C-alpha cells in the first residue's frame, strides 16, 4: 500500500490524476499495480522484461530506492513514492 505521485509528463496516462493509491508490499509490486490500473503507463515505466526503466527514478519519501533495497524496498500504507522522470525543457 503506497501513494504514488505521478509526474506531469505521465499524467495523461492516469486521467490527469496527480497521485494514485496502489496495492503491494514492495516498490516493484506497487509499480506493477499502478501499471495494471493504468496500462498505458507500462511502456513508460517498465521495459520489455518488466524492469523499471533506467531513465525513470523512484524515490520512497526523500530516499532514492537505489540507496535502499531497490525495487524490493518495502512500502507501508503511509508511504509516498515519487516517480521522477528526466525532463529537459528550458
Amino acid at each position, binding site marked *: 500500500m503506497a501513494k504514488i505521485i505521478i509526474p506531469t509528463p505521465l499524467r495523461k496516462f492516469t486521467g490527469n490524476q496527480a497521485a494514485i493509491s496502489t496495492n503491494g508490499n514492495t516498490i516493484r509490486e506497487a509499480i506493477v499495480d499502478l501499471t495494471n490500473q493504468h496500462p498505458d503507463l507500462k511502456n513508460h515505466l517498465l521495459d520489455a522484461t518488466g524492469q523499471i526503466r*533506467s531513465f525513470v527514478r523512484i524515490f520512497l519519501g526523500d530516499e532514492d530506492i537505489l540507496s535502499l533495497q531497490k525495487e524490493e524496498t518495502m512500502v507501508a500504507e503511509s508511504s509516498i513514492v515519487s516517480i521522477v522522470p528526466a525532463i*529537459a*525543457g528550458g
Partner: protein
Amino acid sequence: MQDVSFSKAELERYSRHLIIPEFNIEGQKKLKQAKVLVVGSGGLGSPLLLYLTAAGVGTIGIVDFDVVDETNLQRQVLFGVESVGRSKVEAAKERLESLNPHINIITHNVHLNSANALEIAKNYDVIADGTDNFPTRYLVNDVSVLLDVPNVYASIFRFEGQVSVFNLVDQNGKRGPQYRDLFPTPPPPGLVPSCAEGGVIGVLPGIIGSLQANEVLKVITGIGEPLSGRLFLFDALTFTTRTLKISPHPETPKITELIDYQTFCGIGPNSDQTASLVPEITVQELQKLRDHGHDYQLIDVREPYEYEISNLEGDLIPLGQLEQSLAQISRDRPVIVHCRSGKRSADAILLLQNKYGFTNLQNLKGGILAFAEEIDNSLAKY
C-alpha cells in the same frame, strides 16, 4: 582574493546586498570576480540572466544560437516585441547592459556541441544549464565534470520544475553527484516531449529560473547550503514541493572526453532511417493536390487542442487513438498524414505500415508549421 573595488554607483546599486551581515561586501566582491556561463537564454535563461546581471555577477557568458520568436514571449521575459527576429544573445546583451552597465556580458552565438563546448566553457567558474534538450544537458554535464566546475541545473515541463546543483565540491573537499548520477541514460527520443511539443506554463520558468539564479549566487559566495546532493521538485498545478536526496550512481561512467551526444540520446542516425522508410510529400505538393481537387485523405494526428489553434481541415485522429480508428483510414486512395512538425506523423505511418500493412501513406514534411511558413501564413504557428 585579488583586490576588488567598487565605484560609488556600484556601492549604491548593491547596497541591499552589502547590509546583509552574512553576505556583505565580501559576498559582493566574489560576485564581481565570478564568471558564469549561462547555456540557453530561453525560459529559464531569462530570469537567470536578469537576476545574475542585477545582482552584479562580474562576467556573464550567454550561449544560444537561436533567434527570438513570437512563441517565446509568453515566458521569455528577457525579450520584447521589438526583439522578435533578432539573435537571442544580441537582444539579451542589449537588455542586460541596460539593466547593469557595471558588468561584462560575453555572447556565444553558436550551437553548443562537443567540438566547441570546452573551448567556450573553460573561461568560466560556474555553468548554469537552462537548455531545452537532452543531448545538450548531457554535454553540459560532461563539460562541467571535465573542467571541474559546478553545474547549476534546472529543467521544466508543463507545470513541473526540477532544480539541483551538480558536481559541486563542498568545503570538506567532497564532490556532490552529477547529472548522470540522477539520470544515467537518456529517455528514448519521442518518449518525453519538449516544451515546444508539450507546452509549459509561462510563469514556471520564472519561478524555477529564479531558484536556479539563487543557487548560482550561493555557489559563488559560499553562503548557506547549496542544493548539492538534493533534487528540488515543484509542481505548480498542485503547489507541491519535494526535496529528494541524490547520491552518486554505481553505474555512472568516468567522463574522460566529450562524445556524440545526439547519438547517445538516440537522435540522428534514427531520423535518417525513419526518413527512408516513410514516404514524404512536401507542402508545395500537397497544395497542388488541393488546387487540382485530387481525391486523397488528409489525416491530422495531433491533439484536439492543437487542432483548435490551427488546422488544414484534415480528419483528426490523435496518434494515441490511431489503432482504435483504423476503419477511418482509407486504403484505396492516397492518404497524407500530418502533425505539427512531421515527427508524430512519421511515427504514425511507421506503425500503420509495419503493423497494419498500409502502403498508401505519405508524411507531410515539416507538418503544419511548414505549411504555415511556406503556403498559408494566415495559419497560426505554435
